[in-house]
Structures are given as structure tokens and as C-alpha cells.
């Protein structure tokens, strides 16, 4: 699912080589089996079913309960703000409550999300543990520079040292979720340059300056 934007568009709309494997195996995928098996198995809620109200607007927690602990939530919010900080264009991911979306995601009673749950929970524990180990403080209480020293080790799966590979895998997943959560908010859509979802009388195609930049004018 979380690949390049264009390919998800294509897969979702046209490709149908969808994120969900066909057949009954889709709902039979094992729930997380790592050290957090207990955390993973705490998901007993049911999903929204095959006939949900599509008109309604939903918030995280509306359909199934959120499950991060207060401490996990603080770490998640802090990491969201490191990955997508506030700038002149838009607020930080934490200010927009993206950590609530991540909580919704890993608390969901579906197989893809169940696979992510131990990755995220173990990863947040690694972040917090590393922060305590290096700085003897909570991650959320670190200075920006201190947070960066932790994130710099794990922000690239390619460059991460062998001991950091699992943490780098967590970071990549957390970053993807942060991005997906952030860019689906009104502020995030505006930030990234999405100006559609507006009824128009005519569709005029790309404006002249676009064609010029593409060498098609």
C-alpha cells in the first residue's frame, strides 16, 4: 500500500493488484508475533464492516478504541513533530494530531495494521529506551539537536548500521504513516499542493505556464 503516490493511485484505481491479498487469506493473516504479542493480541474490536456509512466524517477512535498508552502517545507525538515539523507553510504533524491517526492505525482490527502494530510499538520503545540511555531523559523532553542525533542513525535504511536496521525499518514505517496522516488533513493537502476536490464548470487542462515548463507550449 505505502509505496509511491502514483503507484498507489494506479493500484487503487486501475491496477486492482490491490493492497489486500485475495480470498480468505486476507482476513486470516497472523497477528503480530514479536515481543509485543500481548499488545497485538489486545485488539479485540471489530472493523467497520462491509457496509459502513460512507457519508459520515470519522475521527480516530470513532470506530475502534485507541490503544497507545499515555507514554507511548507522547513519544509518538514528539516523533511526528520531528518528522514533519511546523514551518511557514503548515503546522507540525503533532499539532494536527497525526499521532492519533497512527494510534488508530495500529489499533485497527485488520491484518495490515496488525502487522504494523508490533513494529510501531517496539520502535517507540526503542526510541524512548535510546533516549534514556543516551540522555537520561524522555525523548519528548530532548532538544531538537538531541532528537536529531537519534533520528540520524535510523532515518535511512540504506545507511543505517547493522545494529540499527530494525530501528530504521520502524522509522521508515512510522515516517510513511506520519506522511499519510499529515497530507490527508486539510492543512497537509494545502501544503503539498493539492488544489482539487472543487466542482468546476469546465475542465481546462493544464494552464499555459505548465505546458511551457514541460516544453509542450
Amino acid at each position, binding site marked *: 500500500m505505502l509505496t509511491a503516490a502514483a503507484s498507489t493511485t494506479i493500484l487503487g484505481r486501475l491496477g486492482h493488484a490491490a493492497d489486500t491479498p485475495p480470498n480468505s487469506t486476507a482476513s486470516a493473516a497472523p497477528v503480530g508475533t514479536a515481543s509485543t504479542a500481548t499488545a497485538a493480541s489486545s485488539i479485540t474490536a471489530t472493523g467497520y464492516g462491509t457496509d459502513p456509512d*460512507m457519508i459520515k466524517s470519522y475521527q480516530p477512535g470513532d470506530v475502534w478504541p485507541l490503544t497507545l498508552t499515555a507514554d507511548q502517545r507522547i513519544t509518538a507525538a514528539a516523533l511526528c513533530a520531528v518528522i514533519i515539523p511546523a514551518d511557514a507553510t503548515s503546522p507540525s504533524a503533532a499539532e494536527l494530531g497525526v499521532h492519533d491517526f497512527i494510534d488508530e492505525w495500529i489499533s485497527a482490527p485488520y491484518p495490515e495494521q496488525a502487522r504494523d502494530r508490533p513494529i510501531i510499538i517496539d520502535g517507540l520503545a526503542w526510541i524512548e529506551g535510546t533516549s534514556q540511555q543516551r540522555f537520561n531523559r524522555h525523548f519528548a523532553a530532548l532538544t531538537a539537536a538531541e532528537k536529531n542525533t537519534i533520528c540520524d542513525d535510523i532515518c535511512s535504511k540504506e545507511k543505517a548500521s547493522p545494529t540499527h536496521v530494525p530501528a530504521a525499518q520502524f522509522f521508515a514505517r512510522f515516517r510513511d504513516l506520519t506522511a499519510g496522516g499529515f497530507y490527508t488533513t486539510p492543512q497537509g493537502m494545502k501544503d503539498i499542493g493539492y488544489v482539487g476536490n472543487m466542482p468546476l464548470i469546465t475542465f481546462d487542462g493544464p494552464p499555459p505556464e505548465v505546458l511551457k515548463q514541460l516544453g509542450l507550449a
Partner: protein
Amino acid sequence: MALLTSRKTQPRYDVIVVGSGAAGGQTAYTLAMEGAKVLMLEAGRNYDPTTETPMFQTNGEAPLRGAGTPDKAFGFHDATIDGGWSVPGEPYTNASTDPKRQFAWWRARMLGGRTNHWGRIALRNGPYDFKPYTRDGLGFDWPISYEDVAPYYDKVEMLIGVYGSNEGRENTPNSPEGILQPGPKLRAGELYAQHHGKKIGVPIIPIHRAVLSQRLDGARLAAKLHPNNPTAQRVLTAAMSERAACFWATNCGRGCSIRANYQSTTVHLPPALASGNLDILTDAMGYRVLVDDHGKATGVSYIDRKTREEKTVSARVVVLAASSAESVRMLLNSKSVRYPNGLANSSGLVGKYIMDTVGASLSGQVPALENLPLHNEDGAGGGHAYVPWWLYQEQHAGKLGFARGYHIEFESGRRMPGTGTGAGMEWLTGGNYGARFKEDARRYFGSFIGFAGRGEMIPNENSFCELDPVVKDKWGIPVLRFNWKWSDHETRQAKHMQETAAALIEAMGGKVRSRPKADGRDAISPGGFIIHEVGGTIMGTNATNSVTNQWGQTWDVKNLFVTDGGPFVSNADKNPTLTIMALAWRASDFMLEEMRKGNL
């Protein structure tokens, strides 16, 4: 006559139509508008697109930001209800455990069926596509030719509204003047691909989709579609006036509350109901075709999903339009002492020669599309352009290593963000965070392009469905078991699709996300994934080589018809829905004529 909420059917109808999608909708429309009394059975619930369609809801308003789940595999707002790759309590099985031999079956349990979320790509088959055996010695010829079907393509295009252009390409028929609506302007990425595709000889032309780019001229169209039938003209004119033109926003896969695109529930069923000649029974799961001692169909039994009882309804003519595989299932479940192998199956071919469309995709990133001035690229809620199959001559000369063609669908540009937006960029950025990450997300948004090949599968002996000897659904109805195998023609074609996609991306100066697979078997999507399953009740010239004649009339039971994709004997790369509708209209005209003559 109306949507039956009291579940009181008439004692007898002229025709029972099982299914309410493209085939059922078209069949019921044609019959009801011309005066036949029709009862439609739909397994799912009633569905009203005018009140139930999420039009401007963003992904941010959906659980999981709209991401697909087993409950809603194409995303939360997709117009599929009680369906998807699995339907709760209604399984199907696969005979093989080999991952390469699986078939996945997408169903919807709702009025209008899969037309509600359909991609709306509406391409005509060409002359070659009806005579593939004659052309290359593989598969089968249809008992009809393009000329037989062309008038019905015209009618369907006029009725449902199709945008696109006439490009005069080989085996890619033009529509007569005045039928197609003007297509929308191409988007930046489509124009850029078109321009650079020329360098490598890959044509990109406007696509045809069942979306209104302007309002329909109801009176003119109704007079053409229903000559000498003032009642039908009046009803259709009124129904067409209820349809708005596209307002160039929202994804067609959600359905359309303003009825700008085709779905059975907004185009076929409203006028058919307004004619006064159609009753619709929802939550009625078709089970068996009932037959009398003379081998004539007398009606249908169905499971009432509300009461779980098996009930029966009667008619002069029975039409199965339940989707090709579901119609096969009903025929096989209609077995009796007289028909131990299922109904209409004296040939032994019911369930045989099922086909899907070959699918393979490849995506990439194009630097030229980065940081384009912001503009609204939503457009018609789907593609404006596509790559038609262009290598007919090379293929015919045996130069390609596979026998049939494909087209390529693609999308690009800044589309409504979802959970994939800003995600998975590490292959471009090396992996970062913070201010730099935000800049990169802006830079790359809209610069991705993905190409999805859609190709013709040749029917084969190893791809068929049958009743599972053990498994039943929650209604107690035996379920289908699928057998599936791609041939080298399909897997080589899938490899070629990915290579073409890579060549296009590179011609645009872009980078592919991953290299084309060396082996097409790793490139091809599993069977059923493109949701174009057809065949299983193939049409032909006689009762031993086919299940139905050219009208979808079963050889064995003359008042039993199949009007969905089941009678297809080949599955051209052109998406099947328009052809399903054209053939359903043609079959319905035949039924009307035969009923008038007293032959049915």
C-alpha cells in the same frame, strides 16, 4: 410496479432477470422500455447513489484515512457494499494451492452490482476481436462479427453517454458521428507521456469513458433509441434530464450522486422503473432455475436474505445476468435427475473457458513533472488518455512471442492525497525527516506516474470453475471452485507490458521504481485481479461447441438466456463492460421478437 419493499411479487412475469449490474440493468432496461413485464432479482441490498455517494469527502474524513482493508479493499469510499475479494459468509474456493494458480473473485452485494464502482472505461471490441481464431489459430471465433454488434455499441454509447474521440486506429473502431461526447483535455502528465511516447513509437490517445462531459440531449437520443415508442421516449427523455454533466471532481470509483457517469442504478434502472414495467426484488439471492417436465424454464428460486427461506418466482423467460461466474453457479446448482450435470450443460461446457484480463504494472518518477505550477488536475475522476494496442502487424507476423494485444491505462498528477502520499520516498531521497522531508514531499507530489497494462487472455482448458463438492455458503448453496492457469501467451505479454511501461518512463526522462521482472510469471497479476472475468457459458454455432447461441439463448433450454460476460468466447484487451451491455441489448431485442412471435 416498483422496487418491491413488501416483497409481494406478481404471480407471473414475462421475464425474470437475475442481477442488476451492467448486464441485468441493460437487459431489464431494454425489455421494460419495450413493454415486457420484468422482475429483477438482486442478491444485495437496495442502494441509492443520490444519497449514499461520498462525493467530496476527503480521505482524512475516513477511518484509516481511507486506506483499503479486507472490509473495503479499494478504500473506504469505494462504491462496493457487502463485497470485495471476499463476501462474508459466501466463500469460494480454489482447486490448487499453487500461488500462481489462484483466482480471486470480486463481488458486490448491492443494487447495481459492480457498475457502481466501475472504472467507466468503455472501449469497443474491434473486428479482429470477434474472429481471433481466424486471425491466429488460437481460442475460438465468436458466431458474430463486429458488424453484428456495432449498432448496439452505438445504442449503448448513446444511452449511457461516453466521452472520447475517433482516432481511426487499427481494430479500434470509430463511433459514428454524433455519438461520442467530447473528451476532457489531457492532463499535464498525459500530454507529457504522449509527447515522449512518440519517440519510442508508443501512441497515447484520448480514452473512452462512460462519463458525461456535457448534458445529454434527451429528446434527440430517446427518439433514436426508441423509434415508434412515444412512451419510452418520454420516460427516457425525463430520465436523461436528471443526469448532470461531470463537474470535474471526485473519483468515479465512489459512484456519482449527480449521475454524471454510468452506473446501472443511475442510468438503466430509473427509466426502466419509470416505465412501470419493472419490479425489483433486492436481498434475493438467486439459487436455481426451475424447469418443467418439458425442459422449459418456469422461473427461478431464490433465498430471501431477510427470512433465509427459499422462494420461487415465475416467468415466460429467465435471464441470468448475475456476473459470468455467478450465472455458471446457478446453472450448475440447477441440477436434477433430468439434468445431473446442471442445466443447459449438455455440452459439458458450463463453467469452462473462463477468462480474466492480463494485468501488469510499473511505476516511476519523472523529474520534469516536479514542482509544476499548482493547478487542479482532478478531471473526469479517471484517465483521460491511454495507450491503445499498437503492434497488431508485428504481432501478426509472429515477432512478439505472444499472440494477443494489450492497452495501457495510466494516471499521473496531483491527485487527492491518501495514505500513500509522501510515503515510500526513500528510494528518491535516501531517507530523511524534518524540514527537508517536507520540501521533498512537495517536490515529488504529482511527479509519479504509473502504467497498468491490460491485455487479452486466451481461453484455455485449465481455467474453469465448477461446484465445490463440499463447501456451501451461509444460505446452504454450493459454492464455486476455481481452477486457473495462465499460458505463456499471457505471462510473456505481462513482461512486455512492464517493459513498455519502463520504456515510457525512461522516454519521459524518469526513473522506474523497480525494473521489469525478468519472468512474466512474476509480473502478471493473479487471475481475477482485474475483475474482468468472462466466459463459462460461451456462445457458439451449435449445441456441442457452446452453451448458448449468438443471442445468449441456451441451446438446451430455449427460454433461458445468459446476458452477462458468460457467453464471451474471447476477452479482448478492451474492457468488457461496454460489450456486455451491447450484447445484452442485442439479446433483449431477440427475446422481444421471439416473445412477439410466440416462440418463447
